[in-house]
């Protein structure tokens, strides 16, 4: 079986993408702006003592979640990771619910049962993550398995990081998906660091190469180009629902903030950070969209106002009732997942 590996899929800036309308391109920017604004506000709240526990963000990685999520159909299912807040926003989770979630409020997506980005609003077709990474790769594989068993034209998508490719579940998932030719897309967010462990201490071979040995293509994509990420996902999804099996997309990006808010990442070389700052995904998409004549400043102001309002709402919402702490360990009836928002114009074509 022939596979492509290590082939960068890169969009040249001067070629307009075939499958994105102007509204799509603006939408991609808007959602990245929203992700950044929500996370920056949450960081402020964290420093003000309003966010218990720890705080994680995906600053500088916004394209990795927004791009692929934009290509997903409403009935597709997503296993979203902690630096992929953009995916939740694309699927329709409201910023106020997210900020409430960080602050452990009753109106948070998990109603205070789990913290930070350990959430998935199942009504939007997202499954919440666990801390053991990359456990969710197997869950996504199982979702894809169900779609195939049912003969449905649906796809599962899961994100995971460079660090978690060292764990057994990564291999079990890739192997299983390859053997059964399942409609699942694996997005490896290679942000160069797993906490303080650089990739050179994590693997001897770039994990994208491993797709081949499990029987399917692996492609490397510029993780900070949201339109490239979209396109890679669009192609991978088409493969999946056509019954051609999984794809591993390695999104090359950089973790711009520490592992969590408590980590100042002094172990990361300053010049590495400087180089990647030049490739900020929001700046790049803003430049494209501005070239189309869109007023990016107004867009930014709208997003800021939206997040301000969301913060007000979240701050005013109550903490959970301690009397509820032991409720809901067991389900009394089956809960069906719902479909999420699918804003890509391609669905109406």
């Amino acid at each position, binding site marked *: 079986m022939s596979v492509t590996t290590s082939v960068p899929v890169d969009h040249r800036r001067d070629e307009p993408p075939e499958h994105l309308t102007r509204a799509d391109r603006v939408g991609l920017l808007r959602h990245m702006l929203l992700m950044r604004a929500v996370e920056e506000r949450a960081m402020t709240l964290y420093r003000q003592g309003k966010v218990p526990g720890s705080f994680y963000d995906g600053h500088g990685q916004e394209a990795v979640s927004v791009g692929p999520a934009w290509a997903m159909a409403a009935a597709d299912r997503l296993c979203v990771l902690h630096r992929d807040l953009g995916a939740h926003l694309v699927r329709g989770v409201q910023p106020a619910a997210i900020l409430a979630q960080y602050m452990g409020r009753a109106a948070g997506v998990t109603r205070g049962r789990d913290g930070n980005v350990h959430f998935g609003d199942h009504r939007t077709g997202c499954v919440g993550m666990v801390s053991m990474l990359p456990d969710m790769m197997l*869950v996504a*594989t*199982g979702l894809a398995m*169900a779609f195939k068993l049912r003969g449905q034209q649906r796809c599962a998508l899961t994100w995971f990081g460079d660090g978690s490719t060292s764990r057994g579940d990564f291999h079990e*998932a890739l192997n*299983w998906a390859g053997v059964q030719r399942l409609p699942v897309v694996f997005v490896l967010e290679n942000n160069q660091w797993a906490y303080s462990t650089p990739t050179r201490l994590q693997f001897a071979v770039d994990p994208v190469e491993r797709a081949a040995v499990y029987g399917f293509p692996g492609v490397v994509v510029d993780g900070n180009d949201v339109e490239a990420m979209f396109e890679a996902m669009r192609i991978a999804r088409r493969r999946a629902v056509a019954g051609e099996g999984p794809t591993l997309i390695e999104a090359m990006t950089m973790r711009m903030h520490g592992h969590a808010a408590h980590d100042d990442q002094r172990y990361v070389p300053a010049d590495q950070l400087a180089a990647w700052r030049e490739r900020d995904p929001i700046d790049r998409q803003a430049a494209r969209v501005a070239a189309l004549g869109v007023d990016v400043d107004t867009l930014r102001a709208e997003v800021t106002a939206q997040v301000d309002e969301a913060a007000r709402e979240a701050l005013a919402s109550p903490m959970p009732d301690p009397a509820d702490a032991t409720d*809901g360990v067991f389900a009394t009836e089956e809960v069906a997942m719902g479909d999420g928002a699918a804003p890509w114009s391609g669905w109406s074509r």
Partner: protein
Amino acid sequence: MSTLTYLQAISDGLRTEMRDDDRVFVMGQDVGAFGGAFKVTDGFLDEFGADRVMDTPLAESGIVGTAVGAAVAGLRPVCEMQFADFVACGFDQLVNVAGKMHYRQGLSVNITVRLPSGGGFSGGPFHSQNPEAWFMHAPGLKVVAPSTPEDAKGLLTTAIRDPNPVVFCEHKNLYRRVKGEVPAGEHATPFTARVAREGDDLVVIAYGAMVHTALEATEDLDGARVMVLDLRSLVPLDEEAILAAVHRCSKVVVVDEANQTCAAGAQVAALIAQRAFEDLDGPVVRVATPDVPIPFSPPLEQAVLPDVERVREACRELLAY
């Protein structure tokens, strides 16, 4: 009604549910073409096809994890671990993903994980375990352990229908050794205890294969009327039935085939000490396998697993107290 072995009853229950509900499917190693390591799914591939009787790669974490995905997609997977001991390889997915999902995310995970458990046939340290206590301790998982063919079918049916993850401990040493009347067609048993024999001088509380050991040990014990309570369900634990039995009998022997420390019987004993103190006419006695890996050679294995004589002696001593 028909007379089936414990193993046939499990097959019957599984087959009946699969015929009734096309969301139910089986996944595990060697379950399809081979019919299962113990032949529980013999003939299933022909009837239901490869999509519903899935031969998986050798990957317990994969089996449990993908089952979670399939369940949240609306299917009802019944996973088979080839031996209960191997569930350790899927522990993380079961405890952290499946068990905690509903509490955190409000999403139900309807999976059933069948564990062929127990020893007594020189299976050695990796084929003889009773690991239920690990999962009793994990919030969000239900755990059941039938001792009779009728209950094997009935509890499996209820487990498959339960929207929560259920760990189904089927005792492999009972597969062909125990026969009984099993209702035909649909048969569901609630997750409660069952009085295997009435009595009031002493109660032996047990589950799985130990129920049969307890019944044999106390059949003819110096004229004493010994109750045997078959727990059947470990999570949820039928506290009402346990406390009622202690209230009636006042003397209790709790039997575990599992390793003693923190086995199910330890939880039962703690419950009794706290909530039935005033009903006790003697200490709560436990008979359990000591904390050793189950040995392979027959004299060693027999020395550690609780047998009829050990249970009988414990009862005799307590009766005389």
